[in-house]
């Protein structure tokens, strides 16, 4: 029953999948390009990876990004889990209101959040640095860190906590022995996605970074303004690998549930 139009759409969609991977493949291929000039392909080399690991300034920004991502990711995951648990488990008044409030950072343009944070920090006399950046990254990762465990809690079998109660488990024991172990994968997913979001953020970072807290994306961006280097392709390849690693750790099932819950 497929019409000609159906076939046209199918082929178009297949082409779009190709389109999605062309740039990623290009970054990987060009990272092994022997030529100094990024666009002329002259042969294979692993030289740029070597240079990458000796670039002290770049490694410093990598460290900063990792620290910020770790701190913001952990904080957002903890706060998000508490929020999700309170919204699902307790009869709090104004559930929809609270959930709506948590989702504000998803809707408000990031650039507006960025300038707002810059202004409030300078008004409060907090100098831009590690603290301001971590706080800024908590804001943008919190919605995700709340939605992911909420989705997992929604997928839990209703009879589990009833059974635990019937068997005489108190609230805390039910949580520790039944609910928490079942929710652990979603907590890991929330952390990994928060870490990744923070690690690659550029808008909020632009407004909250201070002296000595340049992150990797900020450094890549300023380097790119003067031109693309083969070293950046090598770095890009490592970031692509990092993405694949995160997806593998989070897992396909979890990923689908997350996408379903964000709607």
């Amino acid at each position, binding site marked *: 029953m497929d019409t000609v139009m159906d076939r046209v759409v199918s082929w178009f969609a297949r082409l779009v999948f190709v389109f999605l991977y062309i740039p990623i493949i290009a970054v990987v291929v060009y990272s092994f390009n022997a030529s100094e000039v990024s666009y002329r392909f002259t042969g294979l080399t692993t030289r740029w990876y070597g240079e990458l690991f000796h670039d002290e300034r770049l490694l410093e920004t990598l460290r900063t990004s990792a620290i910020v991502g770790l701190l913001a990711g952990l904080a957002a995951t903890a706060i998000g889990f508490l929020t999700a648990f309170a919204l699902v488990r307790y009869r709090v008044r104004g559930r929809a209101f609270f959930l709506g409030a948590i989702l504000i950072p998803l809707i408000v343009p990031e650039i*507006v*959040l960025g*300038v707002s944070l810059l*202004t409030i920090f300078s008004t409060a006399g907090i100098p831009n640095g590690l603290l301001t950046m971590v706080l800024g990254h908590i804001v943008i990762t919190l919605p995700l860190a709340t939605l992911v465990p909420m989705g997992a809690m929604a997928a839990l079998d*209703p009879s589990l906590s009833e059974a635990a109660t019937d068997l005489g488990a108190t609230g805390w024991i039910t949580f520790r022995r039944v609910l928490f172990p079942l929710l652990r994968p979603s907590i890991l997913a929330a952390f990994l996605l928060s870490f990744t979001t923070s690690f690659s953020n550029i808008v909020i970072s632009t407004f909250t970074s201070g002296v000595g807290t340049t992150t990797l*994306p900020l450094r890549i961006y300023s380097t790119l303004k003067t031109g693309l280097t083969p070293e950046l392709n090598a770095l890009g390849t490592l970031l692509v690998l990092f993405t694949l690693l995160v997806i593998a750790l989070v897992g396909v099932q979890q990923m689908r549930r997350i996408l379903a819950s964000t709607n």
Partner: protein
Amino acid sequence: MSASTAPAQAGRALRAPARGTLLGYLMLLPAVAVIVLLVIVPMAVIARQSFALSDPLLGGDVGGFTWANYTKLLDPVYAKTMGYSLAMAALNAVVCLVVGYAVAFYIATRPASRQPVLLMLVIIPFLTDFLVRSFAWITLLGSGGPYVKLARLLGFDASSLVPSQFAVVMSLLYAFLPVAVFPIYAAMRSIDPSLREAAADLGAGWWQTHRRVYIPLSASGIGSSVMLTFVPTLGVFVIPVLLGGGKDPLVGNLIVTLFTEFRNEPLGAAMSMVVLILMLLSVAVVAGLLRLLSNRKAA
């Protein structure tokens, strides 16, 4: 169907005995603190600052109340950027919608076992670092790159497309396409495939099947898709600089420049407020259209 009943069921299950409500509020406290102190209060401060006077020499906010920042945005320099940004955001939303709809329809109509794989293929580029995704196009479209070589091979006289508006549109589509696919796919997934057969049996052609069945039933996804591409495009500031050569800035570029280089915070704040208002307007328009559509469905 199942998507809306599942959370309700879990809510009942997890909520077991209705006690310790105080504990629930305590658990919400950290999140409320973050949202109030780091989102609501800062945005209120920005709103106030957009009416403040700025020191022409030192910059910054020197208090007072004026509409001057907003009237200054009507100045051709700023109005041009505003118009260009809106046009670019609208173009990107439309292109993402059309391409995203086709991809979402393709995924949703594959056998159930293959859908997760295809969805995964859309997720991988989406989670890849934004900057990596953007600078890849410099290699691909730049001078001496694959695009130029291929075009010359085919006998065209091509030159570097970086910087160009085409490169900007291309990489905007690339950056936002996955975001456009997800909500439409999520809405289409719950459409019964037999509806398509029924439509065909009743003599509906390809276009009619979409217009009368698929588009109305996935309207909420289409709405989210447009909003998730239109508003964020206004805030983009990396792509116009890297692929457009910085000649045609978007509002995002202007806000960054006003805050970090010119130190004209009140003017930057006014511009941010305009972006925020545009966001609210687009939410209202999309919500209104959806209501109109569901009323028509009910009628």
